[in-house]
């Protein structure tokens, strides 16, 4: 079959190979070139399951996917139309998700009997007719690379590691993308080792040249139509962990205070720890504790002493923080818990995504212990989300749980670099304590802010306001231990009221697309935002009448949420859990319960557009 230059609004390109093949580096550089060319984009890193696997096996496959195009892109796409497979296993694993007719570039040199067997192919798919649905383009990539490198003093092993640069060069040619971002980077990166530098540049150029000269190669070329090129501005690609780390740095500036980020390594939450550690912001220190309990407790200690304590984890780690969260609630300290949700229960599927910690976040502690719960919606949004969540924690003197998920932490968005001066400063209750005289009486130390019920943040070292706090019930007036029944009722009511008051400060929820006249509202929260956005958009393009609202603040709800939802007779809530937001809505806004339809996918993967569209159409039909 012959290939022709394909022009489309967007492309979904996937690179797949062994962990050692440099797939992720390749993906990043490809993304970079896309970014420089002014396309919108979104990417996804797909790592093999947690144990590093032997070369050539299907469970050792690492992949990188990017969707890019000429209009706002919100997801890395479901069905790649272009794929590069470095070996048979990579082909095997990824075939099921390819678009029919997709261009499949393979390194034919890797399709030897050993690798084919490891991948579980009975015969060579390049030779039988099992790939007729696709445009398969086999290239002797290994051979091409080795030939190029023959001129350099590199071992065969080192040389083979450069295959990704060859492929990059070739792929840049395929999509007609600029080479200089990559070549500049190589020059800088390998400044100290000129031989390696020259070798890599040579390989990139060889790959590019191959495209230009190879027979039939011209027909491989793909183009994207730029409908809406990027607005002028400064952009970068950003992963969830990067956005969170930068967001925390922003918080420390906006609140003018130190942050202590306490964590215990766990997939996928660790990415933020690594990012922060490498950032070395002197106002945002990291502390790797001995376990999750200690990490939460150290953060509480930090907040007690007047820094802002942040503690992060994933699924089982959040469960371990439950008791100490109770202490932070009882002692009314600001605290931020970032939980990168992963597929559960228990150890579950650590590298897969899920949204199943919502109810744990809202209810998972002893006693009536409410906390606000905030959710980020995309990698880039993690920046704003962590600022929003921190603002609540500091304004209301309360722990806040910020929910991320595995999908967010492995995907990357294009992000317009913000200006910190555009953000409102974050007020803290240190100032309330600053206003008190030395040795003020206890009822002054515990006098609450009339709007938030927050107490002054009287801290050692800064205030001469010696007093004691703790996990026992305390007197509403003086903070002393109190066994008084009436006081316990008052304090419980106050704690509930305090969290209810958070809603007084929340912006109204709005529709993110569609109108109030739509026949159906799709209500999303968390990282499903993008997939759901695209699915709703598609439905509407096909004549559907669908609106979307998206919750940043999952607990408490914004005051207007009920009114907004009431405008729709049918509300579809797609979630990666067994219906946790749906459960919350039913219990908090029961008048709406009969309108709620659930769509629950709990397989560790993001939604596919097709499934979502089906669910939306189903809800439109059944009402």
């Amino acid at each position: 079959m012959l290939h022709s230059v394909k022009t489309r609004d967007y492309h979904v390109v996937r690179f797949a190979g062994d962990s050692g093949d440099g797939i992720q580096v390749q993906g990043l550089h490809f993304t970079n070139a896309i970014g420089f060319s002014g396309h919108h984009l979104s990417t996804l890193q797909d790592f093999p399951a947690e144990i590093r696997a032997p070369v050539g096996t299907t469970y050792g496959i690492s992949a990188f996917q990017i969707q890019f195009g000429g209009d706002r892109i919100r997801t890395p796409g479901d069905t790649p139309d272009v794929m590069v497979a470095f070996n048979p296993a990579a082909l095997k694993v990824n075939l099921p998700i390819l678009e029919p007719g997709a261009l499949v570039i393979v390194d034919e040199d890797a399709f030897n009997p050993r690798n084919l067997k490891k991948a579980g192919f009975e015969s060579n798919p390049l030779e039988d007719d099992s790939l007729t649905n696709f445009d398969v383009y086999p290239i002797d990539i290994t051979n091409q690379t080795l030939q190029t490198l023959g001129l350099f003093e590199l071992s065969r092993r080192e040389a083979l590691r450069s295959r990704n640069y060859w492929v990059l060069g070739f792929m840049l040619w395929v999509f007609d993308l600029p080479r200089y971002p990559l070549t500049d980077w190589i020059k800088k990166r390998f400044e100290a080792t000129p031989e390696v530098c020259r070798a890599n540049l040579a390989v990139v150029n060889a790959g590019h040249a191959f495209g230009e000269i190879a027979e039939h190669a011209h027909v491989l070329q793909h183009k994207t139509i730029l409908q809406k090129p990027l607005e002028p501005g400064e952009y970068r690609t950003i992963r969830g962990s990067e956005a969170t780390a930068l967001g925390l740095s922003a918080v420390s500036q906006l609140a003018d205070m130190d942050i202590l980020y306490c964590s215990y390594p766990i997939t996928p939450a660790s990415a933020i720890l690594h990012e922060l550690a490498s950032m070395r912001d002197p106002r945002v220190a990291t502390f790797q504790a001995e376990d999750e309990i200690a990490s939460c407790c150290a953060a509480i200690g930090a907040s007690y002493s007047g820094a802002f304590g942040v503690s992060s984890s994933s699924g089982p780690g959040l469960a371990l923080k439950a008791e100490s969260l109770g202490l932070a609630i009882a002692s009314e300290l600001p605290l931020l818990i970032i939980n990168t949700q992963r597929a559960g229960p228990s150890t579950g599927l650590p590298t897969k995504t899920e949204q199943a910690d919502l109810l744990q976040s809202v209810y998972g502690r002893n006693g009536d212990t409410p906390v606000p719960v905030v959710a980020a919606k995309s990698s880039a949004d993690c920046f704003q989300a962590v600022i929003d969540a921190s603002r609540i924690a500091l304004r209301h003197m309360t722990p806040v749980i910020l929910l991320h998920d595995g999908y967010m932490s492995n995907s990357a968005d294009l992000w317009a670099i913000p200006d910190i001066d555009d953000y409102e400063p974050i007020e803290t209750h240190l100032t309330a304590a600053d206003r008190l005289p030395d040795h003020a009486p206890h009822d002054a130390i515990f006098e609450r802010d009339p709007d938030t019920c927050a107490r002054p943040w009287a801290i050692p070292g800064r205030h001469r306001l010696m007093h004691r706090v703790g996990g026992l019930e305390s007197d509403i007036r003086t903070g002393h231990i109190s066994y008084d029944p009436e006081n316990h009722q008052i304090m419980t009511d106050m704690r509930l009221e305090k969290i209810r008051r958070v809603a007084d400060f929340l912006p109204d929820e709005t529709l993110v697309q569609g109108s109030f006249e739509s026949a159906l509202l799709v209500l999303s929260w968390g990282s499903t935002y993008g997939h759901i956005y695209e699915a709703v958009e598609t439905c509407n393009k096909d004549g559907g009448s669908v609106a979307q609202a998206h919750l940043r603040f999952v607990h408490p709800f914004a005051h207007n949420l009920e009114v907004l939802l009431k405008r729709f007779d049918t509300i579809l809530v797609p979630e990666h859990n067994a219906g946790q937001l749906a459960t919350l809505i039913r219990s908090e806004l029961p008048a709406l319960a009969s309108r709620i339809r659930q769509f629950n996918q709990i397989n560790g993967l993001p939604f596919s557009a097709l499934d979502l569209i089906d669910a939306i159409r189903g809800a439109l039909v059944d009402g």
Partner: protein
Amino acid sequence: MGNMSYKDFASDREVRWCPGCGDYSVLKSVLHALADTGSEPENTVFVSGIGCAARMPYYINTYGFHTIHGRAPAIATGIKLGNPDLEVWVITGDGDGLSIGGNHLLHMFRRNVDVNILLLNNEIYGLTKGQFSPTSRYGTISPSSPGGTLTQPVSPCHFALGSGATFIARGIDVDQKGLVALFQASKAHRGTGFVEILQNCIVYNKDAFENVTAKASAPETQLHVTHGKPLVFGANREKGIKLNPETLSLEVIDAHKTPGEVLVHDETNSLIAKLLVDLTPPLPTAFGVIHRRTATPFEDVFFTQRKSASRAPFDTLLRRAIIHDHREDASPE
């Protein structure tokens, strides 16, 4: 030293331990140590877990944080990393520190955070009404072990040694003079100071330490150690501890006859520390500073590293990734 009296360090709260509890005396020693060393109430924090002993912060007029069971060391670590200039004390019990909280103690010792830990060891869970604790002796009868406990106790000082603690001391609740000195020494030590205090729970484990602490027999049952001084005890300090170099076992010798053979205490030598923490009746129990060595406190390195971090300005950090610059005037960099 300080110009506050020990009474100025008492809070206005009524002290609510059982009459006769050893905690009273420890509290008093703490107040004295604070006054003597010139602690500043506004710069001092007492952190505790849960237990009878853990109520102590309420009675001290500094900042106080009565936290959750076993986690005080972790919280104290956060406090020091939040503000390293604070003087931080942790009050814990044998259950709080060594049952639920053993792991946090281990890591506090390992990190050598500059915090003073007072472990009030009454060999029982006082607050929850008398169940055995990890330091309870073999065969202890308690509501949860009516047939007697089944395990050998853990030794707090031995545990501290195994965990790499840099300051290990032991005292007795009613020996206020001794305690104040140990607390002062702990405070002076840069890094984690650990003081085990034998504390009498008069209600649930009355006189558990009588065999060691009774005044009458004290000269025979207590070995008070001082750096650079020989390890001697007895009414006339006539008994000496000797190490048999062949068998590496201990012998009690006549210190007056062969003073040269008596082991001399070296705080910095961890082998001697091991030998001292292993002393149990019928040999005398060791009191005083058992082990002390110089090591950088965690937060020193922590803040040095933090400050020295050649941090890029935020605007640079924002651009730390590969940047796609689409400003009209931008050129690739």
